[in-house]
């Protein structure tokens, strides 16, 4: 197809220009691969855990892009100009876009090595697990720290601001329902009205963050006694010196997927990269240096880069009675509703 | 409107001084202006005349001295309470208001009734002969029309003193002369006291009852136009008003003036000691020319010879520039009627009667030696 020929060549030209612009000595013939993930502290950890080892082992240069922009990928695929080879993002996106803007890579990668609950689509390969929970400032509640999601919503016993991720696609509904006494097993289908009513009850004490960087910044400043959201980013903040403590009683488990957009210019390299990133060695390196858990069967880190990581290790708490796991198939069907209802509420 | 006689106010400046930093813009100015008098402050730019006007208007506070109107000091009054009309050099019409609104402005500020305002404005427009232009905006009026609107605006509230700051400077000659006569007429009709600032000596001579000549922040001389022209007290005044020939020298024993090569006769000039530095003024209008080199033997006259280097026709008269070997270039004027057809290059004899020479004390290095044209 003429278009494909054009786009391949165009990508080559772009790559060449990029080399020129970046002033690197690398020749245009060098094999490259574009990897999109949410960036920040995650990218830092992944760079050490498997990106750099991969580059060293294969000679393929990995160009990283963040944050994840699925709309852009979808658009690029639609016009035949895909320029991203690997994406790490949530399972809902994999399921909803499989066969449309994402390649079916089942034939290329053996998924039997992963824990089955993380295999959700023929277009996705399980990446890592992580939790959403809340964190409290130790000095704010020295005697009697909050011990449940209900405490997070109790502003009389635990006064002060709460910083919350401003997204309907996170776990805000789940958090509110857990606080309202819903059992972790019965979260789905989500009762939006109940959840939002719960949030409304503490609306005056809420503050919002939008990116993990903001969450880390907030915690380093220490001006908000309670924050909820991304465990990895928050734990990273604690490692960097933020004086917060995680609530571990009832974490909400999430997991990410690797996916390959349709028409990815370096599909072969992409498959190679995913295999490398999900190898036992890579996952072990990652989870021992970053607050995420493995998706591969039998991965067990022996030592951690930091005692805080060990204390907050999320790889084994999945079976604890308070833990909840998201239901990706229900969530993907109700994505629009989740986003819209939250936006309506938050912008009210 | 009040009667002409009671309109004007008596304005008195006593020892008025204004200092900007260590520069005296105005120094020790005394000026007594009678009610209804038209006085012009005349001088080159930077001589302090406008600063003096601005002090009368209240825009600038004097550093020392006092300004009185009808015997009462007005030092403490802000400009808007001094009740003086002012016409600005650039008219300063409010561009966002029609001519009518401009003229009504001072009346509105004085909270006059609507009917009163309409009537006063109508009369003011009549007075400056601008009826029919009330609804125009300033940018739709010619320079002369704008000037008349400014004039109407300055007199409509019947001030007792009218201040005018180079009001005709931006206009062409014909319009200027016509407006001069209009201003004269208005002054006559309204009888208010006018203080008029200009650097144009012709304008000053044509309009004023009295002229105060400013130089470097002080008044050099005050007098009627005729006094200033015929008997200036200083070389500066002589040079500033009208064309002049000024010959520098020292007072001779016989009361004449000895210049580099000779002594000029002067009739009946007392007061200056022999040997003092002095300047002899000869107005070109008093200079006679003769075609021949033949010397006049009139014992009461001064004689020079030279050759004509320029003849300029000015309409009613001719101005001739003569190069004299003895004292340099010399100006002479001949009326068109008496012009003898002298041409450039002609050798001529020059003479003037001793009583037409005016001996001035001192020498002013800042004015030209001879042949001052204004």
């Amino acid at each position: 197809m003429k278009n494909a020929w054009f786009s391949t060549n165009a990508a080559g030209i772009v790559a060449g220009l990029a080399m020129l612009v970046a002033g690197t000595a690398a020749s245009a013939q060098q094999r490259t691969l574009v990897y999109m993930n949410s960036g920040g502290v995650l990218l830092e950890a992944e760079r050490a855990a498997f990106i750099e080892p991969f580059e060293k082992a294969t000679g393929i240069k990995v160009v990283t892009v963040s944050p994840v922009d699925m709309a852009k990928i979808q658009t690029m695929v639609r016009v035949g100009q895909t320029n991203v080879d690997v994406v790490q993002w949530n399972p809902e996106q994999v399921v909803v876009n499989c066969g449309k803007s994402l390649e079916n890579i089942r034939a290329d990668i053996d998924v039997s090595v992963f824990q089955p609950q993380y295999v959700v689509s023929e277009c996705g390969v399980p990446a890592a697990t992580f939790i959403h929970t809340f964190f409290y400032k130790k000095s704010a509640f020295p005697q009697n720290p909050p011990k449940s999601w209900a405490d997070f919503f109790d502003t009389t016993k635990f006064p002060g601001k709460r910083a919350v991720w401003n997204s309907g696609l996170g776990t805000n509904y789940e958090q509110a329902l857990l606080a309202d006494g819903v059992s972790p097993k019965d979260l789905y289908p989500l009762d939006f009205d109940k959840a939002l009513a719960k949030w409304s009850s503490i609306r005056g004490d809420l503050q919002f963050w939008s990116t993990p960087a903001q969450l880390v910044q907030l915690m380093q400043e220490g001006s908000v006694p309670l924050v909820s959201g991304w465990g990895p980013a928050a734990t990273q903040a604690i490692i960097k010196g933020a004086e917060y403590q995680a609530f571990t009683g009832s974490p909400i488990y999430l997991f990410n997927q690797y996916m390959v957009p349709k028409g990815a210019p370096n599909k072969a390299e992409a498959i190679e990269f995913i295999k490398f990133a999900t190898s036992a060695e890579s996952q072990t390196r990652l989870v021992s240096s970053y607050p995420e858990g493995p998706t591969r069967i039998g991965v067990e880190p022996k030592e951690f880069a930091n005692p805080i990581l060990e204390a907050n290790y999320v790889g084994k708490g999945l079976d604890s009675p308070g833990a909840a796991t998201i239901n990706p198939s229900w969530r993907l069907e109700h994505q629009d509703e989740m986003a819209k209802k939250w936006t309506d509420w938050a912008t009210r | 409107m009040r009667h002409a006689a009671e309109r004007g106010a008596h304005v008195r400046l006593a020892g008025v001084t204004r200092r900007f930093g260590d520069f005296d813009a105005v120094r020790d100015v005394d000026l007594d202006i009678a009610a209804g008098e038209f006085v012009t402050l005349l001088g080159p730019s930077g001589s302090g005349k406008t600063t003096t006007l601005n002090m009368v208007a209240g825009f600038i506070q004097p550093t020392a001295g006092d300004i009185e109107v009808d015997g009462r000091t007005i030092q403490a009054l802000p400009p808007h309470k001094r009740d003086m009309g002012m016409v600005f050099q650039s008219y300063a019409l409010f561009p966002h208001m029609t001519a009518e609104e401009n003229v009504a402005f001072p009346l509105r500020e004085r909270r006059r009734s609507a009917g009163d305002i309409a009537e006063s404005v109508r009369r003011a427009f009549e007075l400056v002969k601008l009826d029919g232009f009330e609804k125009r905006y300033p940018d739709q009026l010619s320079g002369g029309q704008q000037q008349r609107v400014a004039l109407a605006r300055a007199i409509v509230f019947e001030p007792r003193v009218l201040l005018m700051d180079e009001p005709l400077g931006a206009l062409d000659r014909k319009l200027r002369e016509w407006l001069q006569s209009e201003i004269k007429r208005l002054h006559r009709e309204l009888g208010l006291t006018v203080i008029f600032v200009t650097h144009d000596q012709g304008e000053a001579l044509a309009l004023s009852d009295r002229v105060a000549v400013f130089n470097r922040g002080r008044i050099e001389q005050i007098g009627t136009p005729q006094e200033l022209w015929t008997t200036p007290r200083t070389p500066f005044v002589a040079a500033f008003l009208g064309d002049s020939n000024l010959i520098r020298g020292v007072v001779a024993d016989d009361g004449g003036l000895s210049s580099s090569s000779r002594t000029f006769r002067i009739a009946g000039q007392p007061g200056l000691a022999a040997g003092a530095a002095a300047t002899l003024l000869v107005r070109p209008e008093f200079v006679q020319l003769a075609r021949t080199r033949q010397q006049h033997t009139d014992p009461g006259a001064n004689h020079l010879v030279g050759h004509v280097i320029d003849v300029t026709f000015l309409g009613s008269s001719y101005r001739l520039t003569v190069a004299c070997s003895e004292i340099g270039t010399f100006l002479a004027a001949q009326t068109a009627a008496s012009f003898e057809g002298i041409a450039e290059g002609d050798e001529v004899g020059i003479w003037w009667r001793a009583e037409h020479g005016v001996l001035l004390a001192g020498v002013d290095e800042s004015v030209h030696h001879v042949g001052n044209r204004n």
Partner: protein
Amino acid sequence: MADGSSKQGSSRPAWLLFALPAGLLLAGAMIIPLLLTFWTSVAEPKAGLGNYAEFFASATYLRILWRTIWTAALVTLVCLLLGYPYAYLMTLVGRRTRMLLTVAVLVPFWTSAIVRIFGWMVLLQPSGLINRALALVGLGPFELLGNLTGTLIGMVQVMLPLMILPLYSTMGRIDRRLMVAACSLGATPSGAFRKVYLPLSRPGILAGSVIVFVSSLGFYLVPQMLGSPQQQLLSQLIFDQVSSLLNFGLGAAMAVILLAATLLVLAATSSLTRGSSHTGTISLSSSNGHPTLTGRRPLGLGIIALFVAAILVAPAIILVPLSFTAEASFVFPPKAWSVRWYEHFFTDGEWIGSLLASLKIALMSAIIATILGSLAALGIVRSRSRFTTPMLMVMLIPRVVPHVVLAVAVFAFFLVLGLVGKVSGFVIAHTALAIPLVVITMTAGLQMLDERLELAAASLGANRFRQILGVTAPLMLPSILTAAVFAFVTSFDEVIISLFLQSPFLRTLPVKMFSSIQDQIDPTIAAASTLIFLVATVTITVSLFATGGRHAARG
């Protein structure tokens, strides 16, 4: 070619050919994409007005639309209240002070929007400098970030120069002797101000307010980074619709609605300005040193001006010390110092790569925009045809259309053309953005140019080409340079369209900074900001003193 000897005032449409290249570029880069956006809004996902119906049926969307208008109005009002005394003071002070005040206005104007917003984030954070200062006097801490306060402060700072400059240019033309005249006619000083000065400054008030209001309608970066979801504005909604909800049809409809609101405001105010044709000041002869009423400078005016100058400069200044922190956070003041973030900037391939990419794109855009824009201005000024006004309006489209709308439109169109992620794509888009500034600058310059000089050159035997090259171009050099600098800065500073056009291999510096702020705690951005800020400050100061010196020499 048009006949150069034709009479003044007659129409010479052939000159419009000069405007053709710029017109074609604008058509390709802006107008067609906008038309396609309009099409998308009625064609996706289903043909019809479904998207509009959805918008106007939703209480949330209407609330956001209303809030967008209200916020823009509030920003305009605050800018006017702060900018008016500041501009007024600028007309009263001496040359040196005026230069300082001008620098205070222009430096942030030329400092990347990202830099300024980032500066505010640092200043306004709960433990930031402002809250600390307030704590010293026993106040606070106040929540300044993530709410309307943050959005307002940020937007006002970004918009203040756009208010002050037209105000100052109008006030500079007001003859202060009119106030003196008013006083001599019996008006009190405050009455003279109210009745004479204020009405005369109305064109500036109008121009400034319209620019600020229209620009505020389309604000994305400031509310996104300093505001909160409770204060979400229409442009953020559009961005979200397209970027995270993949709802192209509704996003396009919202873009059309935002554009319509903007055009409505412009149409309404343009009729307002036409109604006041006599507010223009008539030219007055120079005062030849007459000591007019010495401008009194009340203390209050100085305090407001200092406050405004602080708002303008503070967010850029704060980043300088922050860039030397030894820590990996934005906590201020830093506990230890180092140059590690500069080291990082100059050794990190991504940072240095984005800097080089930005320089390259900005340089190319500046050159092309200056050439095309100057030709267009020449054509517009000289043609005097009835197409002049429509042509000028076409040229101004990129200034008027909110950037989020442009970004969404350009992205969709450039995708089809294969221009996304290409230097050429960036250059075309940025050139289109810069052309209006060039046209405005050059039109103003050309209108002041005495066309008779060209006729004189013609009478001396120069042909049309040599007239322009030999007479017009050298005389216009200051304007051309100004226009080129404007164009360069426009491209170098552009964020939103670049966000859409970026590829993994091609990212401009502002895009890199934007994602860095969103992405990780890394004071490298402070180092980058400091570098940009220094370059801008040096450029503007040098150029100001250079032109100031020339004016002085001229008398």
